[in-house]
């Protein structure tokens, strides 16, 4: 399977997950979008050594995974994009911040190690939040929500159209890549002699296709305003969900819940 086919599979997988039904899937896209943004902002605002205080934030994605029935394994496969750069930056922390911060059974742990682990935990938590948003919300609902939040129509329509054509063009390129590699067995990538023509051919065809696409849109009544899929109203349950999420995030950020919980047993 080449990279394009893998990407197509990932897109299809996300579409399938978003089409499921669960209490989280049924929440309004605005409530899910705002709660996700709030969650990520709160996670990022924790100080670099606040590893213990950060841990209760993991409960929200855990609860959402359970309530939505979305498999965790699909999310963790996406870590391959997030972790390399985060690790590359975080791995230097133990080298430069060597002052002991805590002692675990007599073993000193430096501030750099704590900040490195905190950074990685933050990376994983933020990834899970973004993944859960898209695994429980279809692109149509998300775009309708973005329009409701007054994001410019041009950007939202462009996002929707691009998403639709991403699948079409990626599929076409996957076929081209397979055909190329069948004619050039053992070759790692596209040879320098075909650098321009390989993508260039598809680019020329795509520009013509864009013209045909516009003509077909006009024939169906397009006059600069795109019609989005109708979405349900923002109900009281959606408001309650959003308020509850944001309230809990604020509480965990302002009160050291982990320390308090630990204090119940150890003093």
């Amino acid at each position, binding site marked *: 399977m080449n990279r394009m086919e893998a990407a197509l599979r990932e897109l299809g997988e996300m579409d399938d997950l978003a089409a499921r039904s669960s209490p989280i899937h049924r929440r309004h896209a605005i409530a899910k979008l705002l709660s996700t943004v709030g969650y990520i902002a709160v996670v990022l605002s924790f100080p670099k050594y606040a590893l213990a205080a950060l841990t209760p934030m993991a409960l929200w994605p855990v609860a959402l995974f359970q309530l939505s029935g979305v498999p965790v394994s699909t999310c963790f496969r996406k870590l391959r994009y997030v972790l390399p750069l985060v690790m590359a930056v975080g791995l230097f922390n133990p080298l430069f911040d060597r002052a002991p911060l805590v002692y675990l059974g007599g073993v000193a742990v430096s501030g750099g190690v704590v900040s490195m682990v905190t950074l990685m935990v933050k990376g994983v938590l933020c990834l899970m939040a973004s993944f859960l948003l898209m695994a429980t919300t279809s692109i149509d609902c998300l775009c309708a929500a973005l329009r409701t939040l007054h994001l410019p129509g041009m950007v939202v329509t462009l996002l929707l159209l691009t998403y639709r054509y991403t699948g079409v063009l990626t599929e076409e390129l996957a076929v081209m890549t397979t055909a190329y590699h069948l004619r050039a067995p053992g070759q790692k990538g596209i040879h320098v002699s075909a650098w321009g023509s390989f993508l260039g051919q598809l680019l020329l065809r795509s520009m013509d296709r864009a013209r045909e696409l516009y003509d077909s*849109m006009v024939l169906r009544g397009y006059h600069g305003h795109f019609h989005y899929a109708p979405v349900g109203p923002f109900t009281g349950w959606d408001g309650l969900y959003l308020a509850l999420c944001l309230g809990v995030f604020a509480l965990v950020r302002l009160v050291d819940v982990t320390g308090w919980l630990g204090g119940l047993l150890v003093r």
Partner: protein
Amino acid sequence: MHMADALLSPAVAAVMYASSGTTAGISIHQLKKENNPAQLPTMAVGAALVFAGQMINYTIPGTGSSGHICGGMLLSALLGPQAGFLSMIVILAIQCLFFADGGLMALGANVWNMAFYGCFVGYYLIWRPILRSHWFGDGARAVRLRIIAASVIGCVVTLQLGAFSVVLETSLSGITELPFGAFVALMQPIHLAIGLVEGAVTAAVLCFVYSARPELVREADAAGVSAKGSVKSVVAVLTAVTVLVGGGLSLLASSNPDGLEWALFGNAESGYSENMGLDEEAYGVESAVADKAASLQEGTAFLPDYAFPDSESAAGTTVSGLVGAAMVAIVAAAVCVIGGAYRRKHS
């Protein structure tokens, strides 16, 4: 170069969202003035093509590695800087939302680092002046050489600016302990090599398009048209910006606290001791609720003797933190068990 959410503080992420959002607003305003509704599907198809095209590996002769196209330069050369910028925004949004490549909060920063420099700096300061110049003489061969020069220089310069911005944003966020200079020295050479390869691949694609459909490549036949900025003035501006960024802003990166710390706890050395009124040392908020919670802790701590002589010591804090974290893990496990039972019952 896609930044993850974890590499940014909320304050830096918000500033980058504001910067990218303002640029997007100006771009939309200019595109609306042009009033060309047919451009929207062209932008969408162009964006989808670049998204897919970035997954193609181009073998670099003589090495075992490969490279891919530079989206910002390619789209701005075909669609113009404003349309290219908006197309890059949706590419980055799709990569972030569906592939977890970059983060939702880091989207503003990623747009700035990869789309703004590639589309606006690359087009106005490099692509257009070079294509309008008389470099390499006249004729189709000279135009192709100008396209190659503009693509390679454009990709190298815009990638360098993007990589520098990554370093600046990460350092200002207080994420890394790596000294600013060492971080810059690590990032810039890597992206110099990447820029050269991406420039070569982008040049190959644009030269092919120019050979087949020259009207699709912007400014391709504009040699001699007077531009607002000549190549010499562009070089002078870029040099000044480099000196300013390298010499001036780098001094700020190491000595100031990050924006969120400043906002929450203030900076006593600078005379801002209050701000949101939080005490950095105590890390928490004094309130009646907190007092009640403390008294509840007194009553429920069933291991009162398991204490450290110095209750303020890091070790004492660590033990309660570890126990608390373990309790969080137990709660998480309980949520999983209950959730699993609920789903089994209703499936």
